[in-house]
């Protein structure tokens, strides 16, 4: 057994190890970060294109205090910022807004992205981004055709309602999933709560864009 190492040696070896680890990680980060960012970008794009049919490209805005502030770097978005994506088609005409929202579900927080047409004042597309709802029951919000079909032309005024008995009668009603009523209701509440404060702002923006095109 060698003598007890001095504390100087301990400090040096720990620092050296820390430096080496840091260097190795910095290198890995350098290589992987562009790919990771590209993956995130692609996931966002795919989701936006799905909820806003006909979209070719989009602009990002931060909605706060009654204005839409353009976001230059999409990676700087924080979770507490309400983001709104303005979609445009090949002729640069507005296709609508894609809006991310999150709220309490049956099990855990549900994250969704929905497409909103400010001229018709309708929700025109909907996708669940992230949920931990019960497999086989609550996770039907991901794939139940009748439920998802309700979001093709869903009027948002006066409020979105949940139709639990039979097919929807009015165009502001969502068809509840049997066996997943609570998850369905969670989504309706989430959409109402998220869209209400944004409605005026989005209408103004749409008017500035020049309204519906013929």
């Amino acid at each position, binding site marked *: 057994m060698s003598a007890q190492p001095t504390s100087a040696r*301990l400090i040096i*070896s720990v620092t050296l190890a820390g430096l080496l680890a840091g260097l190795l990680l910095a290198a890995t980060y350098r290589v*992987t970060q562009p790919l990771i960012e590209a993956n995130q970008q692609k996931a966002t794009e795919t989701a936006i294109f799905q909820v806003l049919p006909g979209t070719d490209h989009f602009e990002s805005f931060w909605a706060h205090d009654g204005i839409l502030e353009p976001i230059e770097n999409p990676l700087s978005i924080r979770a507490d910022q309400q983001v709104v994506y303005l979609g445009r088609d090949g002729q640069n005409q507005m296709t609508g807004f894609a809006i991310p929202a999150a709220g309490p579900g049956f099990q855990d927080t549900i994250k969704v992205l929905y497409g909103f047409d400010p001229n018709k004042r309708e929700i025109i597309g909907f996708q669940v981004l992230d949920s931990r709802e019960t497999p086989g029951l609550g996770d039907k919000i991901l794939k139940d055709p009748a439920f998802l079909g309700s979001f093709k032309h869903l009027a948002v005024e006066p409020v979105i309602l949940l139709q639990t008995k039979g097919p929807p009668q009015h165009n502001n009603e969502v068809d509840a999933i049997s066996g997943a009523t609570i998850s369905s209701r969670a989504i309706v509440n989430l959409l109402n709560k998220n869209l209400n404060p944004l409605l005026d702002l989005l209408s103004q923006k749409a008017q500035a864009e020049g309204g519906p095109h013929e």
Partner: protein
Amino acid sequence: MSEKNLQSEFLKGIWQENPVFVAVLGLCPSLAVTNSCINGLAMGAATFFVLVCSSILVSALKSVIPKPVRISMYVLIIATFVTIVDFSLAAWLPDIHKALGAFIALIVVNCLILGRQEAFASKNPVGLSIADAMGMALGFTLALTLIGGIREILGNGSLLGFSLFGPHFEPWVIMVLPPGGFFTLGGLLMVFQYWKDRKQARLRAEQNREPLVKGPMVV
């Protein structure tokens, strides 16, 4: 028993000293991500990489690492490899990264990995350490895949995404939910206990018989 060889060091982790079923280590990932076979396999593979790489490094550097700070060093090494795995999965296999989520980073606190560094890699040459790490990691991966497989078959009626029983099977949803993880591992531990008890009983029976047969030859 005195001479350690590669083969036995490799094999012990898979069955005799299986980290999940015998040592009951690394519980958090073995239950949290095993709601499907493929997730179990991916988690096992990530752990495999971290465990083998850390063991190589710790074993190679064992004379350089000062004793008083060795645990911090092991943790530093493990955390570095886990971060590399985390970044690589996010870059090249984003779907798997999303499915495993924060549990990839939690490999750091998997007692199995730190345990092998302290108990084996820091005392043995590189070759043996690799064999030990690979055996343990393979045992861990097999256990996770098995748990994931059982939970997926019963809870979803499928294996590796392929439907097994046709449309009339009513899946036991509870098996892919958290309670199913506890039940599956509890059941498997019971099976292992049964196997261990039987082996011990057989051993005892042989020992009791031995003097009768071998008695005269000793003299």
